């Protein structure tokens, strides 16, 4: 589904991603871990098409097409979803309105009829249950004045509504209380299907107790320095990253 080959990306003069290769198949869950500032969010943003990062070399193939050729909104319409590490506020625009606009754009891209506000209510109602969110949140402005945890949960609500093929969740677990973590994780699991895939960026093993990854990668200094199965996450939890970063003296 997603094939990243030797990806280099920079912001301004600064090179952040220094040759990333990663293959994600349909049905898989990949976890990306790694120290602060190692480039995890940058990778996520580059996949989503943030204009602030320039891809200097390498390729991203998604569903048989060249992802880098697509505008950010075209990627979203093609089923790529990024849950932001820091969700953005849009004052004055209700969550319900925003979600329906997004939902309809994606339907339009697939030549499906748009839903009016009343029809959309049914979709909403079902999805609100997935993340156990109160319907009153729908009448508030997008992320404005939301608590940190509410913002994260709102990202998952969007994901539930938009039903992406490839979801990239950037630290969606950070800032969640224990109940919210379980709800969000269960939400992600419920949305899992054989034909979609998830990339989880996280610092914490505890998320991986709920959402069991097929692969775990360690990103450091803009490179993937180690990949393994779910046990790698446990090892990282116990030992930290140092043993990976410093070559063992002979």
């Amino acid at each position, binding site marked *: 589904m997603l094939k990243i080959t030797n990806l280099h990306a920079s912001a301004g003069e600064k090179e952040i991603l220094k040759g990333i290769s990663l293959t994600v198949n349909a049905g898989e869950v990949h976890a990306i871990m790694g120290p602060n500032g190692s480039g995890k969010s940058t990778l996520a943003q580059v996949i989503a098409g943030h204009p602030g990062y320039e891809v200097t070399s390498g390729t991203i193939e998604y569903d048989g097409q060249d992802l880098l050729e697509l505008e950010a*909104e075209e990627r*979203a319409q093609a089923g790529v979803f990024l849950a932001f590490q820091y969700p953005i506020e849009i004052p004055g625009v209700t969550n319900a309105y925003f979600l329906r*606009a997004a939902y309809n754009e994606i339907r339009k891209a697939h030549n499906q009829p748009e839903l009016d506000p009343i029809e959309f209510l049914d979709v909403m109602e079902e999805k609100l249950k997935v993340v156990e969110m109160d319907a009153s949140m729908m009448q508030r402005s997008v992320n404005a004045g939301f608590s940190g945890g509410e913002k994260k949960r709102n990202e998952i609500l969007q994901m539930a509504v938009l039903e992406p093929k490839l979801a990239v969740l950037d630290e969606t677990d950070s800032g969640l209380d224990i109940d919210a973590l379980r709800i969000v994780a269960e939400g992600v699991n419920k949305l899992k299907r054989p034909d979609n895939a998830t990339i989880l960026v996280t610092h914490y093993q505890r998320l991986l107790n709920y959402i069991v990854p097929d692969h775990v990668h360690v990103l450091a200094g803009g490179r993937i320095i180690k990949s393994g199965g779910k046990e790698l996450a446990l090892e990282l939890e116990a030992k930290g990253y140092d043993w990976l970063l410093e070559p063992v003296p002979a």
Partner: protein
Amino acid sequence: MSATIETLVNKEYQYGFVTDVDTDTIPPGLTEETVRLISKKKEEPEWLLEWRLKAFRRWQTMTEPTWPNVSYEPIDYQAHTYYSAPKSVKPLQSLDEVDPELLKTYEKLGISLTEQKRLAGVAVDAIFDSVSVGTTMKEELAKAGVIFCSFGEAVREHPELVQKYLGSVVPYSDNFFAALNSAVFSDGSFVYVPKGVKCPLELSTYFRINAANTGQFERTLIVADEGASVSYLEGCTAPKRDEHQLHAAVVEIVALDRATVKYSTVQNWYAGDSEGKGGIYNFVTKRGKAFTDAKISWTQVETGSAITWKYPSVILQGDNSVGEFYSVAVVNGKQQADTGTKMIHIGRNTRSTIISKGISAGQGQNSYRGQVKVLPKAAGARNYTQCDSMLIGNRCGAHTFPYIEVANNSATLEHEASTSKIGEDQIFYCKARGLNAEHAISLIVAGFCKEVFKELPMEFALEAQQLLGISLEGSVG
């Protein structure tokens, strides 16, 4: 360079067509003779001619204001035409007699003078160039005792009301443009709502400038008698022409004791092209006087015009009277707007609210100019002002000029102001959810304007929101 908010292309102005109708147009130029000629053509009574002449003489002694934060080539007042009327509109008995070309024009503009608005519960008065071409739903209104007609008709049919209130809120000597209007105004709308009557319909006037080189100078007078209430909407468009056109209107509102008047404007005059060629110069004086326990509320969505100079104001004359001003002003391309309000607190416990949202894109310059004045007797007066500016791109500007004068120390004034830029991050967030940049901007802007939009009558709120999308289209690359 990743800045997507840089490039600017203007979307075609969709109301820019010209209607081919026979007109009765007087030669350009402005002298006392012109004023007499206009008055004669309109078969006006002597008192009105006298009033016009006084205004004209006063105007000759006045100079154009230079304080607004706008710049434009000097206007040659002798080069304009001061009267142009579609020939077929002599005295109209019913809409059936209106020139079909004109009716078509209004259909094209989405303003059906016939069935449509009837269903929507809106009565429309359409002003084409300077003359009213038809007022709809008169009978329904008459049942309630509401008078809604063209200004000319009001002068003929209800001279005592016109004479009593004309100039009572905006005297002809008020300012340069008001004096000019008072001298040469050709038509406009008149509303009178009798004591205790709640007007059963939305009233709406639709202004259209068609003829070239013709100034439009309408005059609107709205009188809500004691305990009456009315909601009034004004819409405006004009053809695309390469030369600037002058529009200097006056609106006067009288809200007697306990009356409520809500006046909404969706102004979409042609703004000129992206190089600043053509477009309407809009110099408008709008003011209301609120008596005891009365309320006057101005809501405006200003998206068109090359230059906007406009300060809908409220004189809070009576105790406990309320004044409100809700405004969205958008400038794109080379548009310039200097707009705001004046709230003059005279009575005790008078209250005013000012919510101004300025949006600047392209190379547009947007200035808010607002005055809150509390006179010595206005004990307990309160004002809340919120003035927000949003910038789209790096070449536009937002400016704020608040003037506050308080002569009673029991008054409470609050002022909040903010300036924000539509961030790349907000746009990217929307894009990451499948919205393109233009959709993203219009969504973010609509959110920004929400407090104002919610003041508009339902059916026009949508229209305004769409209009905003149109005027900002092309403001991202």
